[in-house]
């Protein structure tokens, strides 16, 4: 009973809270990083260097009035943010933070597929949110978002297939272990796949330069235009949680998960003094930094350009990568 119910429940509670806290600090990090990139200071008032802004933001959002437009479909309007956030959190069930079973909730043998499939559920939140608002801009944005998510999902899945081909397993623990055994992170074996997954990840999380669904200069905020208060916060949380998920996936698959750099070089063993989960979280935040960095730098794609990039560049390249990987697999 303890092992099958209590411990997992505890882990889930800890993990969900950790993710949510991470998200709030991620928001702070984004504000700070972009501010620095733009030669500003960012939040400075709440706490030293604005650190407590991470708490102030959620409190503000919780306290705000939660408006439901009159013409909205109120059930769906309420459900949409939940459907957006839940898959983002569910994914963490299979994300291993370290080699030990203590560090993950479950290691299922179709872990990678699980992540792909669950994140694909997240699109409902966006579509329904846009539709339920019964407003034109959110509707346009949600149509854009769903088309974008589905398109890029294909590219990402195609790319991940070539990774699966290399490892021979769908289990995320298995993938990291495979990297330890081969002594090299897959990011160096599959650089094309790394780039593709990262670009696809940017698109799937609606991050710049693919942030069309929430392009505030075009669509005044996208699908969550009509949302406010906590329901808006849930969308917000979902987006940032998704960023963490994508970063985690990239790290697990391409950057050795919890492994230290150069796991095959013995004299670097002192790096193992840091716990595995620190390595993992550190790498994840590194990628999150890259996300933010890109947002600070690049302009935004246009919808048609985004679609043609997805369908005409990423998917063909992913297929090509898959074929090349297959050929290598067979030949060597």
């Amino acid at each position, binding site marked *: 009973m303890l092992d099958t119910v209590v411990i997992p429940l505890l882990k889930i509670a800890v993990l969900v809270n950790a993710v949510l806290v991470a998200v709030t600090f991620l928001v702070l990090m984004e504000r700070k990083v972009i501010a620095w990139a*733009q030669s500003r200071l960012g939040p400075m008032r709440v706490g030293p260097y604005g650190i407590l802004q991470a708490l102030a933001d959620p409190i503000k959002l919780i306290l705000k009035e939660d408006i439901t437009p009159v013409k909205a479909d109120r059930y769906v309007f309420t459900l949409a943010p939940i459907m957006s956030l839940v898959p983002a959190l569910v994914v963490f069930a299979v994300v291993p933070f370290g080699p030990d079973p203590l560090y993950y909730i479950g290691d299922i043998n179709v872990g990678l597929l699980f992540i792909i499939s669950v994140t694909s559920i997240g699109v409902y939140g966006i579509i329904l949110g846009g539709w339920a608002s019964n407003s*034109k801009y959110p509707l*346009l944005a949600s149509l854009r978002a769903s088309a974008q998510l589905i398109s890029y999902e294909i590219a990402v899945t195609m790319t991940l297939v070539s990774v699966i081909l290399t490892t021979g397993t769908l289990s995320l623990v298995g993938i990291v272990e495979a990297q330890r055994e081969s002594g090299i992170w897959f990011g160096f074996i599959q650089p094309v796949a790394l780039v593709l997954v990262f670009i696809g990840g940017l698109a799937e999380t609606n991050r710049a330069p693919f942030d*069309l669904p929430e392009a505030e*200069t075009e*669509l005044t905020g996208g699908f969550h235009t009509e949302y406010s208060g906590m329901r808006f916060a849930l969308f917000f949380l979902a987006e940032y949680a998704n960023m963490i998920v994508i970063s985690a996936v990239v790290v697990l698959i391409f950057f050795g998960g919890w492994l230290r750099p150069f796991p095959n070089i013995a004299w670097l063993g002192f790096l193992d003094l840091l716990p595995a989960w620190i390595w993992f979280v550190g790498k994840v935040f590194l990628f999150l930094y890259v996300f933010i960095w890109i947002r*600070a730098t*690049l*302009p*935004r794609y246009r919808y048609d350009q985004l679609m043609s990039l997805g369908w005409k560049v990423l998917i063909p390249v992913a297929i090509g990568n898959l074929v090349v990987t297959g050929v290598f697999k067979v030949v060597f």
Partner: protein
Amino acid sequence: MTVPAPRASTSQFDTNELVINMGPQHPSTHGVLRVVLRLDGERVLDADCVIGYIHRGVEKLCENRDWTHIILLTDRMDYVAAATNNLGYVEAVEKLMQIEVPRRARYIRTILAELQRIASHCLWLGTHAMDIGALTVLLYAFREREFVLDLFEEFCGARLTYNSMRVGGLPLDIPPGWDRKLRSFCDLMEGKLDDYETLLTNNRIWLKRTRDVGVISGEEAIGLGLCGPPLRGSGVSRDLRKDEPNAAYEEFDFDIPLGTRGDTYDRYLIRMEEFRQSIRIIRQGLDGLPEGPVMGKVPRLLKPPAGETYHAIESPKGELGYFLVSDGKSTNPYRFRVRPPSFCNLQGLKRLVRGHLVADVVALIGTIDIVLGEVDR
């Protein structure tokens, strides 16, 4: 959301056409412009601009002020380029009254106008880039604009609405040390321009978003009455600083950049080059700044002889013209009329956006560089 535009198809089931309302509360319409878009999916079939949300009746107000008080009303039209507004007005009055302006004053006016051009273009660059999604450029550009505002503040005490010129010259000479600061700003600005260009000019996404977007030929641009960078972007060499020199422009050496394709990217490149040309003019002005008074001989009470005049200058946004009628009796203008460049350029929007996507609309509003205060007056 009320939609006044006629619906081409009355059926609410029609999936082909969607009418959406961009603005007046929209982050990318640069104020309170309202654009009613008829969409086919994401493609714009037609666009109608609805203006007048900040109409204050400036022209009518001016007809009830005396000639000197009008200057501070002109500040409020293109409020991001108040100095050029002043310049155009005072020169128009000087033309009407045939007042000789001291050379030093003309030099300083030129410097101020070009400085104002830098400030205005900074604002344009930042907002245009942000409309297309490049956030950082906005803050960079505003950072540099801040320097300009500081300089203006030091010169005339105001940061936005300067009221910086007078009929017959300038109210004040430049403060001591101001020219040195201006010079260092010029050096600084040149470096920052390279920064902007690094971020944008060869950026693939920027190119994709601006190349071949909103293409307009020279003939069409003339036909629509476009002026300023949108006109020059289509390869029409029309710049009043060269064509009808005012202030001290005929004594300066500068180039007029011209576009070839007439698309958004060309207009971007032109404005970037205008930054550099402005810096060049400012430097020449500082180098050759003559000594002498900054205010000419002007009567206490301005009372131009009966008559009318039209005087236009090249403001940062294009041809800014003032049409003044004096009855010769009162101390107010009988008629005060402005030809605002933003208003004329905005007429091109309908033509530019047709056939493009919604996302291009904001890019195109950005590229024609409007200020609603000037459009509505």
